[in-house]
């Protein structure tokens, strides 16, 4: 593996997310970086990755990067197209979709996610966000959840203003208490590094930094006292192939091929 090309932090984040996709599993993908990462994985190390979009397209194989979760090419290339109630009830809810891919406007130390409102007063928020969509049930029911989000103090907060989707709740054992069957967020991939929940406390801990990123940078971008894993790794930079395929892919965004 040779690494020569330079790359952006977003490219590193997307590549790291794509590497988290194991071949042959099914993942529930939203638009944006999750969709880009999943499609990158399908074109590199995970050709058998099954892409499930909440529009009911199971096993979509888009030729171009879709701009919406309901692009026509997703239906044209899917193994099966099912209704929206069916995708949530028969496919997501029983845990058939191995990995759920989520973004966040706020995420806290326990990987709880807010995409609803910024501010303490739900009725009169500082900022009104789009809301829940499929995220709460993805977070609840997927066997594994991976969060992809740019890291900053504005986003990585001690406590989210509103719990839209449950990560590890109030900490160790809380998901079990709530009856949530999935494992919850196992990885939070950012533009600075990779955070994973501490096995004992479930608090997000820095387990890898991307090339050229310092631990202090990651700490400064985190709204709680970020712990660092003893075996802190440095993320392998994007390979030439990963970068080439990613840029090719980005160039197709929204195209009808």
């Amino acid at each position: 593996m040779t690494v020569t090309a330079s790359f952006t932090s977003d490219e590193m984040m997307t590549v790291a997310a794509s590497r988290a996709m194991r071949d042959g599993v099914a993942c529930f993908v939203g638009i944006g970086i999750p969709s880009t990462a999943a499609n990158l994985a399908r074109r590199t190390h995970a050709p058998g990755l099954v892409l499930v979009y909440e529009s009911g397209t199971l096993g979509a194989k888009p030729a171009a990067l879709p701009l919406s979760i309901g692009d026509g090419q997703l239906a044209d290339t899917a193994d099966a197209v099912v209704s929206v109630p069916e995708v949530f009830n028969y496919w997501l809810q029983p845990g058939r979709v191995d990995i759920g891919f989520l973004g966040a406007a706020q995420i806290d130390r326990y990987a709880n996610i807010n995409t609803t409102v910024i501010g303490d007063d739900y009725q009169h928020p500082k900022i009104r966000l789009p809301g829940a969509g499929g995220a709460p049930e993805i977070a609840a029911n997927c066997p594994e959840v991976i969060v992809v989000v740019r890291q900053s103090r504005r986003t990585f907060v001690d406590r989210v203003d509103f719990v839209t989707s449950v990560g590890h709740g109030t900490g160790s054992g809380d998901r079990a208490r709530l009856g949530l069957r999935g494992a919850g967020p196992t990885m939070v991939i950012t533009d600075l590094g990779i955070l994973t929940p501490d096995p004992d406390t479930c608090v997000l801990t820095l387990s890898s930094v991307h090339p050229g990123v310092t631990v202090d940078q990651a700490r400064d971008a985190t709204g709680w006292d970020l712990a660092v894993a003893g075996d802190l790794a440095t993320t392998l930079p994007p390979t030439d192939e990963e970068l080439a395929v990613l840029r090719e892919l980005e160039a197709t965004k929204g195209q009808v091929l």
Partner: protein
Amino acid sequence: MARIVSLAQGVAELVHDGDTVAMEGFTHLIPFAAGHEVIRQGRRDLTLVRMTPDVIYDQLIGAGCARKLVFSWGGNPGVGSLHRFRDAVGNGWPVPLEIEEHSHAGMANRYVAGASGLPFAVLRGYVGTDLVSATANIRPITCPFTGEVLTAVPALRPDVAIVHAQRADRAGNVQIWGITGVQKEAVLSSARSLVTVEEIVDELPPQPGAIVLPSWTVTLVALAPGGSHPSYSHGFSVRDNDYYVAWDAISRDRDAFRRWLDAEVFDRSEPATAESDTTTSEVSA
């Protein structure tokens, strides 16, 4: 049996001030033309129900048609926020907007319960989220066999459902393919329904992936070619992604929005009327 009417007639006959209206279409087949007609006819105090109140409801809300919004994701897909929605919720402009917020799974199951003649639906959802306190009608329910506690949400029973489809035949049977979303459940859960279509044909040709809504479950069908723009109709048009991007600037500014409303909605007499008559007679000729 569904009757075939013009879009203007259809909206006038089925949509009344104060109604609960569900316009569905999951990215695909969003009934924009019908939404614009509702704005033109000046409907007020509507309770708008929709999983993804994207640009279509941003337009209705900005035009002051809505009193309340029942939804699960309110954004401009792939672009950003819904500024008219935010302005109404935050500033009560042009009129205050009450919101009832759910998750996609919750909304989908509420339609299923409505379509099934049940008062509620059961799902694995909401538990541990702040939606439970923010939204009044999310309640726990206990399995009578295992004792496990799950979540119940009440059925949706809109007064009228409005959806867009590719085809209807002259008897009013409706054919939908591609991403079929929650349209069947929206129509079956509603007391009345209006379906706008790309074309009206003598007989529905077999179509892989298509579902059919039998004529006897639909109230009115109206011809509205291109009626899903800037969304799309699989097999007839592609999504106008530039429109969604352009909407961000238009909707950020009240005056820009007002100008858009005048130019693109009010100054356009509903075209489907004439068109439908002629086209219908042409096709039937």
